[in-house]
């Protein structure tokens, strides 16, 4: 059984209203609370994220950025003590409804992690992984998608002659771009990034920042970062979290030049309190 491009589009029922592949998605968060056991990590957060924007999540360590980010692809589901209340709607569909197929959801919402985590497989197999687990067998289609994703991730020129080489032989920065390519290959509509450059050198970091800039034309991007310059450089919107609460959310320019809250200002200017 071969699955063609159209069938993939058909499968994108969870969050897609239209049949068009690669339509960026909007996100609405309503009254979300999260607990780990008795500890409340996220406290009554509301937020709307527009399609084709880059939103930066900032805030001191432990304030709940990762916890919040991982709600969008339900990555916290695997934590036994984790409990969530509230609604998260992607293109109008609540992804925490009972009947939602989590695997289908995650094909729509890609994630890039803090530490590059390529599979111990070849470069090609890494990028093709998402397609293969969807049951796609069409070799030509897979090869095209792999090439496209590697080009989008600005890695193609460096690896095109070595696609069979182990991904573990790449440098850290290349590995992270490979992980981005792996995510792009399944053509999600949202990309979540949890401190994607914190383990990388400045050159690799700026490569990935440029990449994010390009990608927002097609995707909605949320990025967690501890780097204020990075947040101000690449994001359209910024959300500042503090001990589980969303203190301030708005245009990045506004947050960085004229924040409403003292806490935000202190954090951005380095007076962490």
């Amino acid at each position, binding site marked *: 059984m071969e699955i063609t491009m159209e069938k993939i589009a058909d499968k994108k029922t969870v969050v897609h209203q239209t049949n068009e592949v690669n339509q960026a998605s909007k996100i609405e968060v309503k009254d979300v609370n999260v607990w780990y056991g008795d500890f409340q990590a996220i406290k009554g957060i509301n937020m709307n994220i527009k399609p084709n924007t880059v939103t930066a999540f900032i805030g001191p360590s432990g304030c709940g950025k990762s916890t919040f980010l991982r709600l969008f692809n339900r*990555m916290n589901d695997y934590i036994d003590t984790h409990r969530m209340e509230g609604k998260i709607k992607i293109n109008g569909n609540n992804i925490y409804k009972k009947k939602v197929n989590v695997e289908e959801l995650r094909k729509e919402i890609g994630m890039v*992690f803090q530490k590059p985590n*390529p*599979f*111990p497989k070849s470069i090609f197999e890494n990028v093709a992984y*998402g397609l293969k*687990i969807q049951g796609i067998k069409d070799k030509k289609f897979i090869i095209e998608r792999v090439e496209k994703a590697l080009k989008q991730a600005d890695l193609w020129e460096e690896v095109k002659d070595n696609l069979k080489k182990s991904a573990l032989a790449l440098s850290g920065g290349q590995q992270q771009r490979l992980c981005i390519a792996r995510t792009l290959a*399944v053509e999600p509509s949202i990309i979540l990034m949890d401190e994607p450059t914190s383990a990388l050198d400045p050159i690799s970091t700026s490569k990935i920042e440029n990449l994010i800039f390009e990608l927002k034309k097609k995707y909605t991007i949320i990025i967690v970062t501890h780097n204020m310059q990075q947040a101000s450089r690449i994001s359209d919107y910024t959300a500042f979290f503090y001990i589980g609460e969303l203190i301030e959310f708005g245009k990045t320019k506004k947050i960085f030049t004229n924040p409403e809250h003292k806490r935000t200002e202190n954090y951005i200017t380095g007076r962490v309190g």
Partner: protein
Amino acid sequence: MRKIKEYLIEKLLFSSVLITVGVTLGIIAVLGFEAFRFFNEVSIVEFFTDTQWTPLFTDKHYGILPLLSGTLLTSFIAIAVALPLGLSIGIYLSEYAPKKFRKTIKPLLELLAAVPTVVYGFFALIVVTPFLQGFIPNLSSFNSLSAGIVMGIMIIPFISSLSEDALHAVPYALREASYGMGATKLQTAFKVVVPAASSGIIVSIILAISRAIGETMIVAIAAGQQPRFTLDPTVPVETITAYIVQVSLGDVQHGSVEYRTIFAAGITLFVFTFLLNTYSYSIRKKYQQRYE
């Protein structure tokens, strides 16, 4: 004074290393020497091509093939039992089981390897064989099938425990990456975790094979003592180990050719397990490097 003490302790520790290495080398030397003398009297070609092994009869044949086939047949059956079960257990424990369950079940499984093999042998002979005879009427009282199955049960923990360790050592980040792309738990287990742990799993299988090939009691009790060049699991066979037991316990004259057959058989066995262990050692070394 203190210096002398340190010196003595160091030498004492070193001497235990020396003794162990010395004893091992001694065993290999005796094995090699006696086997060498055996091959002075019996041609090595006959040893590896003759399909009969009858050194204790008047019409003497010295073909190792029947013993080798007995050993490989019982080991093969054992692995055929232990591999799917052991690997399934390993995957289940590592990827699905709650932590608490894993912690209690693992030592329990390892008990399987702690049961004295003579118990397994009798279990095979007086429980498994009669039971199987209900389905396979022409199954002999001594056969490689029951012996192999029971041996397989015994070596399950070698595979389940070691492969579980290898699977568990795969970084969680890899599973996360896979889940994050929409893979199910099953897909993640088989497409990411198992391949990433493959070298450790292979090592566990080799150790299990090596254990099966060297196993003596179960096959001596339940598989019989009739050297037979066959792949039929329902008839009595004799393994290399069982033959060595038979001759060692018998009244064969020291220094005779019959006596030396056990060294020739022993060195054959040794070469097999030595190669397997060396192979697993080299895989393990490669694997360590990758995760460092």
